[in-house]
């Protein structure tokens, strides 16, 4: 029983990370019906930018709580700005020139961007893993025999805060309204005076920024970052977004949490279920299989309905 609870806890944290990354995918997709391949790499790049910035702070990262919190905030801001700017650059150079061309062109273009980003980071920062500071004091809470580290608690809580903030932004602000308007009907929005180009840029700023912040959390949680961390996480997060209902923010959250839980439980119990035939190494296949199943049987996803619009 404690094992199950532990697996669930692990899954919840993993799911929160997926959910955060998925938010970026779902926003861009909701607006442009474009799967931004580069998003996974933007998530990775944000972590590197943050690391670069906070390495200037050296010992403060491990010092008194106040200093730690300060460094952590700096990390988040740096990652958000870094990924956000890269997202804007992607929109400007890889999307806008072919915005009216068939989708296949844009997809290949952002695929190219993802490869460029990944290799650029590799060449600049090196192939080896980089150590990422915890930014949160080490320590555990014991609930029965379930071990939860402070970092894990932080990730769950902060993710909730971010998601709520995003929802409020999309629903309660003018900017959010303009995003929803453009997602609903681009021409009508233009006729109503909405600057569509700005809106697209906004989404290409916010989505990747969230991804970058998720990248910092990844670094805090695993203690290390590496230039290939965006690839598989990216696909899984996209799976999460699709499973939850692409274009829907709650869908991304739900999908992310579900995927995290399924993966943890699956990895833990797969040998048991299959009598030892399939082990933990098939975990990724799990995610892909779920993706294919959902897309085939319920392409709108769990919370979907109006496929492909940013909605509440």
């Amino acid at each position, binding site marked *: 029983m404690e*094992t199950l609870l*532990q*697996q669930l806890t*692990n*899954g919840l944290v*993993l799911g929160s990370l997926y959910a955060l990354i998925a938010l970026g995918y779902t926003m861009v997709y909701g607006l442009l019906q474009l799967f931004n391949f580069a998003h996974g790499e933007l998530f990775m790049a944000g972590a590197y930018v943050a690391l670069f910035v906070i390495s200037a702070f050296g010992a403060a990262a491990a010092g008194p709580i106040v200093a730690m919190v300060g460094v952590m905030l700096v990390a988040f801001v740096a990652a958000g700005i870094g990924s956000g700017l890269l997202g804007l650059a992607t929109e400007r150079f890889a999307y806008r020139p072919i915005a009216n061309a068939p989708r296949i062109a844009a997809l290949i273009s952002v695929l190219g961007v993802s490869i460029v980003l990944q290799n650029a980071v590799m060449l600049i920062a090196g*192939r*080896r*893993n980089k*150590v990422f500071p915890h930014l949160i004091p080490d320590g*555990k809470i014991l609930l029965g025999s379930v*071990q939860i*580290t402070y970092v894990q608690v932080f990730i769950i809580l902060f993710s909730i805060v971010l998601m709520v903030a995003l929802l409020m932004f999309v629903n309660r602000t003018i900017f959010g309204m303009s995003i929803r308007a453009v997602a609903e009907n681009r021409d009508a929005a233009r006729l109503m005076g909405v600057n569509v180009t700005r809106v697209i840029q906004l989404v290409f700023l916010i989505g990747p920024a969230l991804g970058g912040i998720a990248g910092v959390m*990844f670094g805090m949680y*695993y*203690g*290390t970052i*590496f230039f*290939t*961390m965006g*690839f*598989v996480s990216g696909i899984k997060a996209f799976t999460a977004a699709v499973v939850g209902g692409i274009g829907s923010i709650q869908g991304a959250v739900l999908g992310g949490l579900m995927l995290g839980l399924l*993966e*943890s*439980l*699956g*990895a*833990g*119990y797969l*040998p048991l279920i299959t009598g030892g035939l399939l*082990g*933990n*190494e*098939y*975990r*990724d296949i799990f995610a892909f299989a779920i993706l294919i199943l959902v897309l085939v049987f319920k392409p709108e996803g769990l919370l979907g309905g109006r496929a492909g619009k940013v909605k509440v």
Partner: protein
Amino acid sequence: MGTRVRTYAALAAVVALFLILSIALAACGGGDTTTTAAPASGTTAGEATTTSAAPAGPIKIGFSGPLTGNGAAVGQDYLNGVMLYLDKINAEGGVNGQTIEVVKEDDLMDPKNSTVVAQKLVDAGVIAVLGPLTSGSTIPTLNIYGDANIAQLTPASNPDVTAQGFTHVFRVDPDDLAQGGNIGRYCYDKLGAKTAAVINDKQAFGQGVSEEFQKAFEAAGGTVTSVNGITPGDVDFRAVLTKIKSENPDMVYFGGVAQEGGLIVKQLRDLGMEQIFFAPDQCFGPEFIKIGGDATEGAYISYQGPPLDSTPELKTFLEEFSAAYGAEPFVGQFGYTSAQLVVEALKTTGAADGAAIIEALHSGEFQTILGPYTFEENGAMGGGGTIYVYQVKDGKDGYLEASVPE
């Protein structure tokens, strides 16, 4: 209908013509520098064909290893060891009056490239090749070098490398059988672990060494509670570790590389698991400790080489290497040793001839900085080789003891 039949007939005619022409052209023998009367699949090295007889010029030795890409650090370090020794030899006037020229090729640890490189080196007329460095990239090159009768010295540790029936290949370090097997016994006898959970990364090396560990551990009397696979590139192992926690083994053996090893040991301790953690040579060195952080304290690592300050020769080597390249070696000593072996073999035969070197390596005992070397008939290290056990203390690999094969 009629047009279609005619078109197909025309097509068939063209095809037939092309086939006949190409076979005729090929049969007249074109463009091959080394040909083989190819034996059926998987037999021993073919008959001796044109080997580069001793040219008047320099002796050519080839190097095949990753110089760019993921393995670049390892490949470069190995090559540095090789060059350190060969530059010294050349400065002293070479071997048998001839200087040595190293033909360096980058194979990116990838079988697709290492086979192309192998062909290149054979065409270049090398008499011996150092490398490739990984088992996956070495195995496909065996018949290329074998057919050309070129002595091949490699650190590739998968037992399959010497199990193909070739006689030209030599392994310069203990193989996975030795490492895993040796450590399996060690953990049961010396560390007192009675139960073990095994994790491996489903790659050639990691899986090979952990399978040998399991065999030896069970043979000594231990029980393996579960064998678990991970995928390289994964970061979150809590699920599989939680499952292992419920099995409550005395130790966890991980067959894999530093990146995953560091993450696993970290998450292991995060979950409150206090088992002994043991990892093979890929986790030796600062990378594992960097990634795993404080959690690596107390972890055991096995390695094929003794500490670099344990003998006067090694100390000298360490000084020279650090002076020449500005950093301490981590695999360079094996490169150095493999170069030593080739040169010593050359001195023994007096002839710069691939077949002669192979003969000499099989029949002699050679002194190197890593100790005396002999080779079995299949090219494995004579006697299996000693494995050295380290334990991480204060953020560094601290030497514990040598574990000699039975």
